[in-house]
């Protein structure tokens, strides 16, 4: 949500509008990040997100984060604690857009702090190479990593990443491959897929249909449609989470 520098017609900005089109498509809840946290500055966008989501209990905040060396954000563990106090249970990173490295020497502290609290980390496919994602998942095996917006053309990479990791999840929003949801469910289990829509850039209805009409069991659909993400968010900061 939030204002874009270059919006296309039909793009909506406010939480109220977002909640409205979600209702029309039959979507109950959503994880939301603010456009300004990507296009302007994460700290500014995160603050705006907190302000604009007030009064919308079905919209859950996802903060955009940076490594702490430049002191634009608090040190990693302090940042994660502020997230907990703010009720934020998911994070996104934009290493390419924000010009930092996803390698350990650059953001190992940040990744470890998120991993200690099992806070799901969302990464757009354009923001990290598959090699970097694979290394990240291997180096932080208890960090839930969500590959967001992976397109259908990335299928060979997606299959290999899911086969080679246990903590990587795929968002379905742009993985529009013929029978893709069915085949990933068959090969890797429904627990590795998270329903996504890329709203408001895209209309949410078609993505809802992709899950609704998938030839998988109702239980698997329930997991993909919301159960898996709910489980990940509920696990973040839970007392049972073991610190490394």
């Amino acid at each position, binding site marked *: 949500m939030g204002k874009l520098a270059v919006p296309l017609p039909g793009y909506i900005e406010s939480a109220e509008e977002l909640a409205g089109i979600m209702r029309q498509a039959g979507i109950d809840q959503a994880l939301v990040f603010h456009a300004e946290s990507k296009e302007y500055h994460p700290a500014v966008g995160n603050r705006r997100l907190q302000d604009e989501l007030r009064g919308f209990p079905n919209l859950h905040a996802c903060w955009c984060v940076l490594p702490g060396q430049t002191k634009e954000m608090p040190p990693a563990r302090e940042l994660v604690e502020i997230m907990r106090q703010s009720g934020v249970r998911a994070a996104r990173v934009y290493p390419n857009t924000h010009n930092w490295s996803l390698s350990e020497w650059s953001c190992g502290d940040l990744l470890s702090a998120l991993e200690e609290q099992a806070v799901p980390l969302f990464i757009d496919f354009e923001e990290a190479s598959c090699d970097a994602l694979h290394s990240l998942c291997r180096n932080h095996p208890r960090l839930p990593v969500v590959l967001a917006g992976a397109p259908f053309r990335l299928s060979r990479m997606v299959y290999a990443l899911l086969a080679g990791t246990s903590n990587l999840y795929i968002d379905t929003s742009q993985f529009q491959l*013929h029978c893709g949801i069915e*085949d990933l469910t068959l090969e890797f289990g429904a627990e590795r897929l998270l329903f996504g829509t890329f709203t408001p850039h895209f*209309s949410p209805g078609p993505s809802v*249909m*992709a899950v609704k009409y998938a030839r998988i069991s109702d239980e698997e659909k329930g997991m993909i449609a919301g159960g898996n993400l709910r489980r990940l968010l509920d696990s973040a900061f839970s007392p049972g989470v073991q610190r490394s």
Partner: protein
Amino acid sequence: MDSFVKTAREGKPFSDVFIFDCHGHFGICSGFHIPQTSDSGFVAALDRVGIDLVAVSTFGNITPAGNDVVGQAVTAHPDRFVGYARVNANYPEIMEGELTRCFDELGFKGIKIHPYCDQISLDDPRYRPVWEFSAARNAPVLIHTWNSVRYVDPLLKFCHPLLIRGPAEEYPDAVIILGHSGGEYDGILEAIEVAKAFPNVYLDTASSRLYPGVIKMMVEELGAERVLYGSDVPFLSAVTQLGKIIYADIAESDKEMVLGGNAARLFGMHEGLRK
């Protein structure tokens, strides 16, 4: 809530409307993995949502071998697949003969060209046999079109929608479907502009870009009779692509035309072939 959205919310097949997908493929793809591309897997996926017919072309760019693969699928499932003859303008000497073979021997009903893959501009004279054949046989030509000012791809110069102005004017009896309607938002605006100018140009809705409001814009600008549901299946899920029409803010009667009525008319198929 209209009856289409209601059916979608219930997850039931669309059994009361004729659905004809004007943009599909058959075979295997080299660029990425696609599951369940056998004809049985393909048909099962169509049945789940209630898609009656798909017009398909080969994935490959070298013909005639690809056309033969499509021919086998059309022969095996004549009530589910309609064939497009894929011709490549780098081989103009076999173009007319291959079109004749595909239509007269394999029973195909349309032509597919891909200027991006051929790396030959859409308005190049080497495509003339296609327009002539289309006009003579009243056969739809599906063209891969794409354009965007937002990213640089040198091959887009071969396939942006405005290039169809010359052939559309020179061959007013040719039946032209702009595949993907230009794809990205900039290309869609071009496709609408050119379709407004030439009544023999139609828009295909297939695109991974699920932009809000685009189907409504096409219908409002051109009329529903000029817009055809297409999916690019099995590159893309036919179901997700169907959702763009189902959830579009247009009248139910317009949805019926876009989903199948228009394609049935263009391809000379009898609406309700299966339903």
